[in-house]
């Protein structure tokens, strides 16, 4: 890899990252549904991470298997989020407001 590819224009990548950061900050002020903002922010973050990994970490110029190694934690992390869904959606957060009243009511 050392000589196998021409150096990408790193300052251009830097500019992209800078612009994307500014866009990220701008996105949270857009008056749309929270879900849309979340999707936009996560996608922007993933694009930035991809830029860093592909160009700064030279992943674009390496073998494909190395990219698979790098992507494994992303896949496992997504799996973890899916696994955790029942934990946080099942029990409390819809009813927590009424539960918060309970200690004040002298139940304990």
């Amino acid at each position, binding site marked *: 890899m050392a000589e196998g590819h021409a150096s990408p224009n790193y300052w251009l990548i830097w500019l992209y990252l800078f612009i994307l950061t500014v866009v990220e900050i701008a996105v949270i002020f857009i008056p749309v549904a929270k879900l849309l903002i979340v999707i936009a922010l996560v996608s922007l973050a993933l694009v930035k991470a991809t830029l860093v990994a592909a160009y700064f970490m030279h992943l674009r110029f390496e073998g494909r298997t190395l990219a698979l190694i790098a992507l494994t934690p992303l896949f496992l992390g997504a799996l973890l989020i899916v696994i955790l869904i*029942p*934990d*946080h959606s*099942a*029990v*409390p*957060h819809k009813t*927590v407001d009424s*539960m*918060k009243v*309970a*200690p004040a009511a002298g*139940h*304990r």
Partner: protein
Amino acid sequence: MKAWREVLACATCVGVPWVKADLGFFWSALFLMVVPVAVAGLIGGWLYSAYRRGRDGVAHGRATIPPLTSTRKESGQ
């Protein structure tokens, strides 16, 4: 409702006020951060000490430092 949950020490009551999730998360996360470092450190230190032992062997008249680990098949020896 509350007493029942309290007795069972509810596993998924993350947002419930009487569960001290912050305490559990903090110490558990800290523990899980320390353990891999400790494991890697112990294994690394053990390999380094093995290497040191090999180097001391040279001082005591061995010809060369043996390799730390073998890249060849060992079975059958």
